[in-house]
């Protein structure tokens, strides 16, 4: 488990989970999660069913932890209503009435949140303005595109007073132009000084939003930190794919197969790909190969240097604790 570097934890620790577990009967929702999040944007990535939604709903106070402690904005959201009113959730699921206009839906939502009718109207106008939907605001929500719907949900939180904003799969099914718009809005939220937690399985979207990421799988936080540190650390512990370019592909493959830490070798046209469990040893050893080959090694490419690759490895590893 990668601990949060001191400089990474923002001065204001908005979310602190310590050995937090959530069980649904015998099913594990979250398992022994340690997590500290400060202001700005933080991403949580993981495959479907990994515990992202459970984490989100635990942070909103909808679910109480079965074990461990949780502190959000200085209190426990499960027991402290004062904390809950400072949290905003943008759920992955639909939450608006199809038959009402976008504006009316927002008004209903703000009224349901307890705002006075006049405030609700003004907040709805403000929300539409922020997410750039003023001109469509009076059209029936049922006729809106997926991207517009997502933006409207985001507007509900953006216009409100939430200090901790939880975005559950905000990019799900959203077209590219809307994605850009959403990304800008989320970045603006983070720049405002709010704490924003974005969950997604669209990894490159998270990478483009923040360099702080937690990787969840099977309810466990497999890693948390800066993407670069995370990739580096997880690479040291996970199978790692490397591509070498040479014309002596068969000779090279024979040499690679002899290494203890190499698990898989594939020969292609002028290149050899292999998977190693010890990338640190592999990179050193690659330098010693050329004298044993008819043709030199002309290029080395690390195929697993993205979060996507690390994510694939660690989530495939399942419940194995790193």
């Amino acid at each position, binding site marked *: 488990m990668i601990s949060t570097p001191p400089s990474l934890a923002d001065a204001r*620790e908005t979310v602190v989970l310590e050995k937090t577990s959530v069980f649904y009967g015998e099913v594990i929702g979250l398992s022994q999660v340690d997590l500290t999040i400060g202001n700005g944007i933080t991403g949580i990535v993981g495959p479907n069913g990994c515990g992202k939604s459970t984490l989100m709903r635990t942070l909103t106070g909808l679910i109480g932890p079965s074990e461990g402690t949780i502190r959000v904005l200085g209190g426990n959201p499960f027991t402290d209503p004062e904390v809950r009113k*400072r949290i905003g959730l943008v759920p992955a699921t*639909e939450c608006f009435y199809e038959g009402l206009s976008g504006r009316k839906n927002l008004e209903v939502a703000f009224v349901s949140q307890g705002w006075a009718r006049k405030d609700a109207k003004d907040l709805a106008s403000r929300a539409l303005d922020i997410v750039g939907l003023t001109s469509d605001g009076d059209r029936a929500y049922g006729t809106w595109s997926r991207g517009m719907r997502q933006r409207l949900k985001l507007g509900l939180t953006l216009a409100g007073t939430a200090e901790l904003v939880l975005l559950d799969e905000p990019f799900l099914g959203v077209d590219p132009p809307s994605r850009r718009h959403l990304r800008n809005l989320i970045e*603006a939220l983070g720049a405002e000084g709010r704490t924003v937690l974005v969950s997604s399985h669209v990894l490159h979207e998270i990478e483009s939003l923040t360099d702080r990421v937690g990787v969840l799988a099977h309810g466990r936080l497999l890693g948390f930190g800066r993407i670069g540190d995370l990739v580096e650390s997880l690479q040291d512990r996970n199978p790692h794919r490397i591509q070498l370019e040479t014309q002596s592909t068969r000779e090279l493959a024979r040499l690679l197969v002899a290494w203890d830490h190499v698990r898989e070798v594939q020969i292609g046209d002028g290149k050899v790909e292999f998977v190693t469990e010890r990338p640190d040893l592999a990179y050193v050893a690659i330098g010693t190969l050329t004298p044993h080959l008819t043709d030199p090694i002309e290029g080395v490419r690390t195929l697993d240097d993205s979060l996507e690759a690390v994510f694939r490895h660690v989530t495939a590893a399942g419940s194995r604790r790193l």
Partner: protein
Amino acid sequence: MTLDAPGQGALVDTADPRRAPGGPGPLGGKRTFRGRTAPSGSRIIAAIARREILLASRRKLVRLLFLFSVIPPVILTVIILVRIFAEQATGAKLGFDPLIQFLHFQAVPVALLAFGLGTPLVAQDRAEDVLFLYATRPVAPWHYGLGKMLAVALPCFGLLLFPGLLIAILRLGITRELDTAAAIAMVAKIGFAGLVVAWGYAGLTVGPSALTKRARWAQLLSFALFLIPGVIGSLVGELLRTDVPPIGAGSAITELLTALLGDGEWGVASTLILVGYGFLGYWVTTARVKREMIP
């Protein structure tokens, strides 16, 4: 990109800039809109109840049922006024006091109103997939459940209390046959009965609504809950040839009113039965919301 729309009242971060990093105090500072922080949970409960009552008041059926619920007190008023004037004209004491009968009678249209108000409440939210609207500013499931229950219980309570208030006013104002203390006691008794019955009605209509996405099914279930326990209670009583506690809503209401305003032995049992129906409906609703909102 800025998030402050012009002229809409900027959000203000009241975090103390001098606060030491990681220091004590509300973390992140409180954000406000026009100087106000986000509303509290109790305001949300009231907002949910108010909105549902407002929406229901736009439905023709509910308006009709409401009018139907107001008819008995109007008839009651006429009867009492006629009695008063007859007594004043003849000097004779007629001794006819229809209060209990009318409260019984009043309970029927109010039950129908509860039926119209309560059965679509949760079913529609689930059918339209808008439960998460209430989680965007996270509320506890009990906030939602209580808000929906109050949307049914409050109008029912008002309508059940209405005849009692009317009679107290008429008796105090015109005939002066009651002293103030007796009038207050009577209104308090009717108020208590109204609270218990309204809460029971809310449970019997909102609870079934949480069990299905179709309001029609909720109506059938609610109707069955109103009737079947009473029938079972009667059958058990017949079989055992003894008095059994009023387990049906109708008989519980009758027994409660009789015990409070006349001479009945099942007052406590009736109260417990009706309050139990209320809590059962409330529990079913919050459990359903929890289940829908928790993955």
